[in-house]
């Protein structure tokens, strides 16, 4: 059995997201404190061929997923939480040929809405390449298909 149920749940969740598989996003760490995902460098996500810097879209996918998955760290049961809004401030470009880590946490949970924030970094979390805030809607457990995805996340057969 695992020592970290957060990590196991998160790993199963991210493996169900097709675009994250395309980008190669995996779970680096997960706990009650928050979620850390990692985006490997690859030539297919380059946005500026002159510098080899990855496109902001790949970073946004990483951070949208990290913020959305941070809800797994605070909700007692799985709920689908679509993004209401997301804001990204780019501190500096990501260095090419290095993975990007995306950390996110929930700082307020209400009955309808979850407020998240996070940052993306490479070598040093103290030198983030981007800061992010995102707001997510709680859809509850009753939404069509939620139970199926919830079971996948729990590791049960759907």
């Amino acid at each position, binding site marked *: 059995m695992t020592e970290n149920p957060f990590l196991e749940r998160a790993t199963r969740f991210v493996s*169900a*997201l*097709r*675009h*994250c598989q*395309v980008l190669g996003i995996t779970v680096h760490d997960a706990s009650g404190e928050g979620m850390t995902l990692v985006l490997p460098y690859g*030539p*297919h*996500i*380059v*946005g*500026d*061929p*002159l510098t080899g810097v*990855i*496109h*902001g*879209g*790949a970073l*946004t*996918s*990483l*951070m*949208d*997923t990290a913020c*959305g998955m941070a809800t797994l760290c605070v909700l007692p049961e799985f709920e*689908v939480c*679509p*993004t*209401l*809004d*997301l*804001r*990204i*401030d*780019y501190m500096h*470009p990501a260095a090419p040929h290095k993975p990007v880590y995306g950390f996110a946490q929930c700082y307020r949970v209400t009955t309808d809405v979850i407020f998240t924030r996070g940052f993306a970094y490479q070598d040093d979390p103290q030198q983030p390449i981007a800061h992010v805030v995102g707001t997510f809607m709680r859809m509850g457990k009753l939404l*069509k*298909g*939620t139970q*199926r*995805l919830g079971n996948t996340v729990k590791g049960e057969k759907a």
Partner: protein
Amino acid sequence: MTHRFKTRLEQALERGNYEALLDLIPYAKLIGVECTRLGDELLFRLPANKDNIGNPILPALHGGVIAGFMELSAALHLLVFAGAPGLPKIIDFSLDYLRAGQFRDTYAKCQVWRQGRRVANVAITAWQSTPAEPIATARAHFKIEEGTRP
């Protein structure tokens, strides 16, 4: 390499060959962005692609893909209309998701609200069925390299 990229970029812009322009950007190829000119405007299209799906239940496009599509549209819009000499650099990006992005073609249009010497403010709207029912709206600030193209 640097020189070749700039030459290809200039050629693509001069000829209005947006396919060649998009071919230069690997991320644009990955998600599959297309661009056509409609009079004085640019219309961006993101064809339905299974690899862009996030939520498998609905299924819905990944929010990050919608954001990447809109960010890329804004940068290209600036490149084509604002005479920026190179790819504009993103400063910040703020996005409101209004409807789930369904597994179908998505379109985007941009509007430059303000272009200063160093920074440009661009609004982006993305829709699937009609422009009156956007799936997302966004605004972005880009840093523009000083000096315009000849």
